[in-house]
């Protein structure tokens, strides 16, 4: 498959981000389960579990999106594939690779100002006391990785993914 031919460095970055997101997901699940258990059994909930889940979710989301960009797993409507040639589809894929990159850069650029404001105002999460700038920093680091993965997609062949792969990625 095309995405297995991604240059090694981009692939390593993708795997690293995937693992970070996976750990965040497991942490999210574990802390919530523990919180429920302690609350109902010992009447001692974990203080700040809500904030912790939000923090883990930020890490999860912004690191979890990288695979979708390097492996071109974002949902597309591929109706046009049935009545156009391979070259045309390859050109469209390449254009959408560039659009993905541009849109991610736009998001990252737009996020800089609120991130800076969060740092300079010194806002903190209510229960955990964690500075919100830490969450913003985690988001920016994650999206920087996603941008690199989107760059990586430009170095992989502009081939279509199989129906099976496309089907697996969607969740409806």
């Amino acid at each position, binding site marked *: 498959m095309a995405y297995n031919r991604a240059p090694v460095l981009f692939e390593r970055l993708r795997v690293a981000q995937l693992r970070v997101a996976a750990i965040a997901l497991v942490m999210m699940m574990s802390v919530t389960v523990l*919180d429920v258990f302690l609350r109902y059994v010992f009447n001692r909930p974990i203080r700040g579990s809500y904030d912790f889940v939000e923090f883990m979710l930020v890490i999860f989301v912004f690191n979890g999106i990288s695979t979708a960009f390097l492996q071109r797993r974002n949902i597309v409507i591929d109706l046009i594939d049935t009545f156009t040639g391979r070259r045309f589809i390859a050109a469209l894929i390449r254009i959408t690779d560039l659009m993905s990159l541009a849109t991610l850069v736009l998001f990252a*650029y737009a996020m800089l100002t609120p991130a800076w404001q969060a740092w300079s105002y010194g806002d903190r999460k209510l229960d955990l006391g964690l500075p919100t700038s830490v969450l913003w920093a985690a988001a920016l680091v994650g999206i920087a990785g996603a941008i690199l993965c989107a760059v990586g997609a430009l170095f992989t062949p502009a081939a279509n993914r199989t129906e099976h792969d496309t089907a697996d990625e969607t969740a409806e």
Partner: protein
Amino acid sequence: MSSSVLGAFGVLALFVMLFLRVPVWIALTLVGFVGNAILSGIRPTLALAGTVPFDVGAAYTLSVVPLFVLMGEVASESRLSGELFKAARVILSGFRGGLAVATLAASALFGAVSGSSLANAATMTRMALPELRKAGYDDGFATGCIAAGGSTDILIPPSIILVIYAAIAELSLPRLLAAGLLPGLVLTALYMGVALIVAYLKPHYAPDTENYSLRERIAALRDPWQFLALFVVTIGGIYAGVFSPTEAASIGAAGAILLGVIGRRLGTKDILRAIENSVIVSGVLFVIVMGANLFSFFIVQTHLPELLLDAARAFNLTGLAVMMIIILGYIVLGCFLEGIGMVLITVPVFQPIIVQFGYDPIWFAIIVVVMVEVGLIHPPVGMNLFVIQAQAPDVKIASIYRGILPFLVAPLMLIVLLFWFPSLALWLPKLFYG
């Protein structure tokens, strides 16, 4: 150019981009960004584009998405569905079409722990299709049952599409999850009715010979206990107000892992694969929700729903007529859009209109999800059909198309029932939450 006309152009541009293979999230983001920039200026739009991804990525309410996805992935990896199918085929044996009905029952039960229709169809294809073929079932009929059964997954809670719908339409998630249950069960019963009629009219499609004793049937009732336990604890916990959706999803995911490990159906590799798949699927969903948020801001600013509402009133259309037009629109959209995209593009436009006509937004959400189900199984681009074909490449797509056609009657009958008896969707939310 008025803002409403700009909104109409924005929607048109969105469809053109989608047709040209632009990923759904980019199309939503770009239309939302450019539209907002034209209406409000570049600075406020940049501020919006900076905060929306973070707000979505840090939204506690959306943490339920990856956790429910994980629960479904684990259930899929642990082959719990195999036991479910085995139990259903014993309990529902002894009559023509029994195995087809068992497939539909197993799909509905699997839907009680999985939130993804495609995962359901893929899993049931692996589990049920070989058995259906071994029993001499017609390929088209067998795959039709699996595709139809898989589609009930997005109505029966937990449903990922309902979670995202709740986020985008600002509706209560527990209410939506409660609203989906009865229509999901009714739809399963309707599918079973269709399967029995097909088996009666075309006996060679379903040459059932299996018949188990009463003792064996009672014994088989024990097998699906894990599914029932997971469903009762998670979804029951939400309904009873014991857990928040995130807590229920966490307990469900952890419980599915625990049951899989205890039952020795789940190894470390299976768990890791389930977690990685959950990350990838959720990542795809989250970027779409980010784009949909920008798009929604744009639609709100354009007052496009008000324009459409005025047009409907100018033509003296009744609420029912407007709903019929919307439903026909969904049937057309379902021919070329996938489910999540269909919901995220249309709901910001349609919901304000139907609310003005006095319809309940929770009821409308269920109608929309049923229409998404129709889109998942109707040719030419029903995703469930492609999933089945990908898992069973020796079954011709023409057979699958032929097999699903009779089942399309069921969701349309459900729509009619929902119009006649809105309480089908609204009774449970009212019962649980007042």
